[in-house]
């Protein structure tokens, strides 16, 4: 199997992770490994906890049980200061973009550099323009976040996530809301960041095609468990019904489109 590498090769290793939101179990003893320098995709139906997983890796949520190691450190045992040091080496692209609304596009991308480095403004300018150019938005640098479309905002957020040249980037749905041209450009960008800078990328996405094109390894999550894993080719040929349903986007199959609910007819007929 592709993932039987030695532990130092894993930038993230998650063992036995359990996490609940109220009574709802989001993860049930999940273990997975993310290899250094590779593009790993996490796929799964909406609401399975992909965003939650990224927040657990970033130390914004704490697991009920189990451990998460990032770059050799146990994320949830770190002191606040150490956690912040670790986060400087992680970039995260939020699903919502999470741009700072009182700053222009330019200042948003410059923000992490201004906070964490003592670079002169001229240098910051060069870096910001390079990052914005990479996502195709160099010309939009004077706009405010409320003047951007959803897809543009996400690309600015991407430029900001790579501002500090982190070791690892977590992309939460980078392709959603992008037109086919930007989508292609983003696929290319993520791949080239990965190969030229040796970045590790974790991609959360529903776009099977795009993801399969760049991922080295894919985990498919559903119902709090990993229901499939492997290289894109392995998954395409997988004989698991679950994985097949997901890779081909069938509505019918073992994975449910509906959030767990009482029987439909009972629900409609029930008086409250």
């Amino acid at each position, binding site marked *: 199997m592709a993932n039987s590498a030695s532990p130092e090769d894993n930038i993230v290793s998650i063992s036995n992770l359990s996490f609940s939101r109220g009574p709802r179990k989001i993860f049930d003893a999940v273990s997975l490994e993310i290899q250094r320098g590779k593009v790993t995709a996490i796929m799964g139906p909406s609401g399975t906890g992909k965003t939650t997983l990224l927040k657990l890796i*970033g130390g914004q949520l704490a697991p009920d049980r189990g451990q998460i190691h990032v770059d050799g450190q146990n994320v949830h045992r770190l002191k606040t200061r150490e956690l912040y040091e670790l986060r400087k080496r992680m970039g*995260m692209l939020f699903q*919502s973009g999470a*741009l700072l609304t009182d700053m222009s596009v330019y200042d948003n991308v410059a*923000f992490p550099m201004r906070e964490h480095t003592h670079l002169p403004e001229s240098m910051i300018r060069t870096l910001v323009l390079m990052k914005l150019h990479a996502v195709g938005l160099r010309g939009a640098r004077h706009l405010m976040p409320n003047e951007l479309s959803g897809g543009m905002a996400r690309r600015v957020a991407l430029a900001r996530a790579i501002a*500090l040249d982190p070791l690892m980037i977590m992309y939460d749905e980078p392709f959603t809301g992008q037109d086919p041209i930007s989508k292609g450009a983003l696929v290319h960008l993520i791949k080239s960041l990965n190969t030229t800078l040796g970045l590790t990328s974790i991609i959360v996405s529903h776009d099977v095609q795009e993801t399969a094109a760049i991922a080295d390894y894919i985990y498919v999550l559903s119902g709090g468990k990993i229901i499939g894993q492997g290289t894109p080719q392995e998954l395409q040929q997988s004989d698991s019904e679950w994985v097949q349903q997901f890779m081909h986007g069938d509505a019918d199959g073992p994975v449910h489109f509906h959030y767990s609910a009482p029987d439909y007819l009972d629900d409609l007929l029930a008086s409250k």
Partner: protein
Amino acid sequence: MFQFLQNLGKTTRSSFAKLGRASFFLSHTLTGISDVVPRPNLLIKQVYSVGVLSFLIITISGLFVGMVLGLQGFNILSDFGAEESLGVMVAASLVRELGPVVSALLFAGRAGSALTAEIGLMKATEQLSGMEMMAVDPIKRIISPRFLAGFLSMPLLAALFSAIGIMGGHVVGVGMLGVDDGAFWAQMQASIDFQEDIMNGILKSVVFGFVVSWIALFEGYDAIPTSEGVSRATTRTVVNSAFSVLALDFILTALMFGDI
């Protein structure tokens, strides 16, 4: 009855939990102030939006409150033939009470509600967690400068309110009702004590500035991250600030001037 006790217990417990979070939040905010000092731009920007933008409402309100004091004071004092003491009356009421209290209430309505809404919305749009993931502590970067700005602006706004109020009293008393100009100022200077009146007034406004800024920022930070949550938090800021200011005013007045 049992239900009532159960609810009471629940409410008490959640109030204590909130108080705990608020205290933790405050200590975190205060430690963040040392990081604001080397970055004065952050502070200046906030002093502008918290303090300077409150100027207009403070000035206009101060003027009217002073004018009303001049009118009412004249009516009462002239019954005793003591119109010359109008200056003392206007100045003492403003410096001791109305300046700090009314400007704190206005500040809570003007700047406090805006702070809560701003922070609450930043939370709702994931800007605060985005910042955390960029390894920037949102409390130190966002909350501490706003807290310091509120805390520093309040005494200045209260002083402005009192100064404008005294002018308002002068316009009405001396300009319109014919109180002697010299007596107005001379009596004021003779009777207003620096320590007793002015320092105590400033101390009050410092306390109010601290409390109102704390409440406003905490309510925003603790808000449920939805539109309704933010709107409720904004209301709570205004209501809780008003209660706290009035209750603290009584306590401080009793300690400073009372012989209770």
